């Protein structure tokens, strides 16, 4: 049975959530300190309170513990709470529902997030496999680190949670974007290894160049595999983006594959959005 973890929720919220979440789910309410490992849960629901800074940190902490897994974090807030949704979303929340939101809307939205992720289409596997293989190879060759591909899910969200991303635009026969996103702890380790410098010597320039180079090499080496195929692309300049909950610009109406890799106890993701160009007759 899937567990839906409620954190710091009042009895009222627990009751109404249990009512809304019909089906084969076990709803468990715990305090933030007693929370279980988020990866085992199907959804996490957190009730917002007055201490905004504390709630933001809690969301970020849970999101970090999810290690990029597609686990929706839903914040339930008081109806009089005028804090913009963006505040919670940029901390790591997937959705924010005020207590006076129409129950029909809440039920459908929660239900939507509980539907299992889809598997990649055959055509998607065809272009994702080279990215997976090259990411592992590049990390081994440039940073002497062993990455293991864990899973893929699909999103059309512009937002990914992590501290830093390197993103590169693709154009040509196919177009789209590829981005690598990491948390600082892993980013620093990889860049220090890549640049052959000690962790404490890393500065903004090393980080900028290291993350830019990482996405450049992953994309560049994968590009060669697509020569002569409908997935062939050219690369633009790498762009480096920082900030918790930063947004990346992927093309409109596109499906973004989020490939999760584990490196020791840490994780990073490669987002691939690749669309072969079609012409209007």
């Amino acid at each position: 049975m899937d567990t839906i973890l409620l954190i710091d929720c009042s009895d009222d919220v627990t009751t109404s959530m249990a009512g809304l979440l019909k089906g084969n789910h076990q709803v468990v309410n715990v305090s933030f300190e007693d929370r279980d490992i988020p990866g085992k849960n199907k959804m996490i629901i957190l009730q917002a309170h007055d201490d905004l800074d504390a709630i933001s940190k809690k969301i970020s902490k849970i999101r970090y513990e999810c290690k990029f897994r597609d686990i929706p974090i839903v914040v339930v807030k008081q109806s009089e709470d005028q804090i913009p949704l963006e505040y919670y979303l940029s901390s790591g929340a997937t959705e924010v529902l005020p207590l006076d939101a129409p129950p029909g809307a809440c039920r459908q939205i929660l239900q939507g997030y509980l539907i299992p992720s889809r598997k990649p289409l055959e055509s998607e596997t065809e272009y994702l496999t080279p990215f997976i293989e090259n990411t592992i190879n590049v990390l081994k060759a440039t940073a002497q680190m062993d990455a293991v591909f864990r899973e893929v899910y699909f999103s059309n969200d512009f937002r990914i949670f992590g501290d830093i991303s390197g993103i590169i635009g693709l154009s040509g026969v196919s177009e789209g974007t590829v981005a690598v996103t990491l948390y600082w702890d892993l980013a620093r380790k990889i860049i220090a290894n890549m640049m052959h410098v000690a962790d404490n010597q890393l500065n903004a320039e090393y980080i900028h160049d290291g993350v830019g180079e990482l996405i450049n090499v992953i994309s560049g080496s994968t590009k060669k595999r697509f020569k002569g195929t409908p997935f062939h692309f050219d690369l633009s300049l790498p762009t480096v983006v920082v900030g918790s909950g930063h947004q990346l610009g992927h093309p409109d109406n596109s499906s973004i594959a989020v490939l999760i890799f584990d490196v020791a106890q840490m994780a990073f993701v490669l987002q691939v959005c690749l669309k072969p160009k079609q012409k209007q007759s």
Partner: protein
Amino acid sequence: MTEKIILLINRDAAFLDQTGSTLEDAGYHTRTASEMRGALALLSANAVGLIICDKALQDVSGFDLLNFIKKDPLREKIPFMFLVPANEQGGAFKAFELGAADYLVYPLAPQILVDAVDELFATDDDVPLPSGIPEAHPTAAANGQTSPTDDPIPVSGLIIDVSRDGVLWLPGNVQSFSRQSLYIETALFGKQGVSLLARIKRADGTFVLNGYIKEIRFEDFQKPAIIEMSVQEEEAWRRIHDDLTQKTQHQTQEAADQPEVEPQLEKTIVMSPTGIDKTAYKTGPFKPSKKKDPSYDRRFYHSLIGRQLDNYRAITLIGTGSMGGVIQGWDVALEREVALKVISYGLSSKESFREMFIKEARVVSRLNHLNVAQIYYIGTSSDILYYAMEFVDGLTMKELIAEQGNLNNLKGLEYFITVCEALYFVNQNSVIHRDIKPANIMITRAGNIKIVDFGVAVSADTVKKTTNNQIIGSPMYMSPEQVAGLSLDNRSDIYSVGATFYHAFTGQPPFQGTDFKTIMAHHVQTPLPPIRKKNANVPAALARIIEKMMAKDPLERYKDFQYVANDVKALRAHIVDRKRPSSRQTKTSG
């Protein structure tokens, strides 16, 4: 030129060491790379003023790199010097063709190299710096003075896009601006000295400004930085700057950011006739509720992306309509693309609307016609009601009109004929679409017409039986009887098709106004503005057909779509005949 960085690219490490030393001794800064990838990384990180490149690199040929650089708008102006072996000087011609500034022959005498580089740097002072490092302000440099005081002016709510490469754009919040600089808060993690583009959307168009990162201020690396972007003195920036200054002073920024009214008027509405004076347009078919937030619908559709409903994988959200959201999907059983239409949360909780949604699916499923998007399946998964239908990959007529200005050509006439024939079939099956408009006519990549969104379509029998008191349709294309909330027949669709093709042939809808009430009143009361006044090139016969379709009184319109199609076909044949050379000759000789 304030910097003289030379990028040396060669497979031979010894050559790079030796040549690099020669140039450093001559006062130049050098960077070295052995392959294209490394060279591009160095180009993005440094203000390179000259590239000296070998014919063969580790990963690609030097010609490939030269070709790539010369196609890159941000780097094309960097002088490129090619190195060729003495016995292969033919390669130099190819390099010149691709845009190289000069070439040198192996083996290379140090003084010849330095002389050639000196010469290039001496002559390229008027070439803009490729990677964005600033030159001294020309006026200030000439006068030996600093530029006049130009304190940054604070501004709020000005959101722009920033980019390093013109491909990927990230949002930026302009904090302040001066004549030379924009101060932007952005998550883009730049580097001092690198080039930057800023895209500003305004009422009079979208402008892309060139510049470079002059300074970056971080509180910490986990938060967005404030970037000072030095902006090139271009006419566009001068205009924007002056305008912004004026607006900031008069606090009229809001006016520039006001959303356009017109696109809303193309949306489908459902309301009661008495509701015209109220706010029903905003709230749609529901009783206005203070708690109603339309974003819930979109958030619900969004929650389905990346999930699987029965056999259908939800790929990406295509759009939202009057009854629900449309998601591009993939049928895993039959392995084909589909469009998944999902009922909105507000409607799904009301039994009558669930029924209407199911009815829509049934209505469309019995319309088996090449030009009507087909329904494949209707189902409920996790309590979510949806149907899977034919995925139409192409453009809407609305997008085509926006792209081409108008469709006053033979192709437009063909679309007109096809739409009439398809709707004749629809009407013959006792179905009235009730929402024909450019956005609901799609042109596939193969050039076929598909009529979509039967969300408010009804059976003609139902209409006759119902005491109708609802206004349903899109204000810009509604028939007068729709506006009045009267019962409808096929002639209401004829009016809407007339209005749609009025728009298609002239590039403008028949009636315009700032709000839907005004436009709806025009449909009832105002004589149709002559088509040829809006586009004199529309043939008079075509104007007459559309005017007849848009008669206020349904009895004065065509009886059915077959008559319209026949008239348009005759007109088309006449036009084609007139265009034939033999026809012209006959007329001349006769």
